[in-house]
């Protein structure tokens, strides 16, 4: 059933008894045209665009847990496209353009809010680098503007503008089209839209092995039985190395915990997203009123979805430095997701040496913003068996050829 004001009124009169489930819970079929491993935002978006853009509807999305239970439900929901290098800028901008029409496209309210993303700078090097980045971004026809210290103060009056602190704020770069989206809604919206096009979403279905016939994939062994398909796309974030390993492929990826936390809910106080590389934190306020905060990864390899306390302590120190008025807020919840970090801090959306096996991974600490764009280019790569112009640079061969896309500054927080 379409979500619309008319159906809302009709169901209101019917005491909301007629709403169907958002998506089915089917039994796995024996065979599909494409299997997507991983029911997070990127995987579901891939399935949706396979069905919508390429007419491939006999698709299964297999998820070992529940939809959006991994990084899709664990991130800090920031969306932006202010990347330095052309390859990244075009890919993330494609994604941002998709975000801008996605609520209507999916007929699902993603609560996408273009409230702006403000990156602060705290020293002269920051300032110069910021100008370079703003100019590069604008050359690619993406919005980015410089805010002077006074403009920053006017835009976010609660920031600590004292010039005598350890890291005084000297200015900032603002992408007004950036902002936030509701992360769970992204998973559910893509799932519902894909399901309506015929995609089977198989939850509690963990992949145990990838079946091969010589150099070609033929299917997967799962906890819900054997499922066959000539094409398999792995979109499993932190478990990328594990799943690619099942297909005999080594990746340049290491998995780390990335922690985030939320405060108790308070009245609207922060209307934009603030990021700072030098004091190392990013903050925004959710629609529920909680301040949502994140920073850098825990340095060690881990699959445990939890990190160490000192990382949070550093991050809280940074928040209090930027916003002294937040010092008395209590923190409500803390968690971690397992992020798949690439040596050049750029993703891999690529074919592999194994025929019919495709990987989409390495998004590291910044995958959420790319959800629709990632799915869009990955669907193209799988359907056409060749990358789209937007993701051909993000191939797996770049680690041999040396054509790395070094975006270590891209997160606006060091990692």
């Amino acid at each position, binding site marked *: 059933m379409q979500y619309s004001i008319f159906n809302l009124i009709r169901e209101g009169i019917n005491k909301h008894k007629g709403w169907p489930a958002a998506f089915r819970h089917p039994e796995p079929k024996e065979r599909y045209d494409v299997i997507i491993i991983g029911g997070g935002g990127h995987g579901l978006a891939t399935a949706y665009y396979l069905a919508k853009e390429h007419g491939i509807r006999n698709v299964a999305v297999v998820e070992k847990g529940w939809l959006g239970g991994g990084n899709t439900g664990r991130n800090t929901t920031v969306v932006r496209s202010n990347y330095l290098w052309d390859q990244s800028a075009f890919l993330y901008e494609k994604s941002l353009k998709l975000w801008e029409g996605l609520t209507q496209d999916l007929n699902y309210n993603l609560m996408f809010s273009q409230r702006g993303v403000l990156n602060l700078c705290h020293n002269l090097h920051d300032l110069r680098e910021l100008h370079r980045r703003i100019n590069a971004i604008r050359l690619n026809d993406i919005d980015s503007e410089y805010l002077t210290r006074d403009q920053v103060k006017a835009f976010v009056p609660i920031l600590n503008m004292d010039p005598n602190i350890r890291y005084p704020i000297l200015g900032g770069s603002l992408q007004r089209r950036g902002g936030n989206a509701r992360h769970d809604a992204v998973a559910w919206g893509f799932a519902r839209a894909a399901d309506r096009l015929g995609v089977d979403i198989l939850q509690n279905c963990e992949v145990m092995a990838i079946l091969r016939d010589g150099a070609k994939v033929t299917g997967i062994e799962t906890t819900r039985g054997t499922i066959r398909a000539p094409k398999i796309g792995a979109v499993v974030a932190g*478990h990328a190395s594990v799943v690619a390993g099942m297909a005999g492929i080594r*990746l*340049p990826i*290491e*998995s780390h915990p990335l922690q985030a936390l939320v405060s108790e809910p308070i009245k609207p106080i922060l209307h934009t997203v603030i990021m700072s590389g030098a004091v190392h934190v990013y903050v925004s306020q959710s629609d529920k009123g909680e301040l949502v905060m994140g920073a850098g990864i825990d340095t*060690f*390899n881990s699959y445990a979805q939890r990190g160490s306390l*000192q990382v949070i302590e550093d991050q809280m120190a940074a928040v209090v430095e930027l916003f002294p008025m937040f010092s008395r807020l209590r923190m409500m919840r803390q968690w971690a997701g397992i992020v798949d970090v690439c040596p050049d801090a750029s993703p891999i959306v690529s074919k592999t040496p194994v025929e019919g096996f495709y990987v989409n991974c390495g998004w590291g600490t910044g995958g959420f913003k790319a959800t629709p764009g990632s799915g869009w280019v990955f669907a193209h790569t799988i359907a056409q068996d060749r990358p789209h112009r937007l993701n051909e640079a993000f191939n797996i061969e770049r680690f041999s050829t040396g054509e790395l896309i070094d975006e270590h500054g891209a997160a606006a927080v060091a990692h």
Partner: protein
Amino acid sequence: MHLIACPWCGPRDEVEYAYGGEGHIARPARPEALSDGAYADYLFMRRNPKGVHAERWVHAAGCRRWFNVLRDTVSHRILAVYKMGEPRPEAGP
């Protein structure tokens, strides 16, 4: 939070250490003789196991010496600590 026993200083909190990534990756004796693929394998490709991981740590805020740790990446349990140059021990209990 890890409690790591430095081979020289004894058990200390994780904050005193810095992480050095996967251990036992030997620099090729003749890198110029390697193919691009083999060099990429040495430089970039990692095991990244879900389970026991042999890795390097340095006691940055202590004796500043490097050593190896055998650690489970799911439970965060430290199974063994051993000095640089020593072979990887069998995974402990």
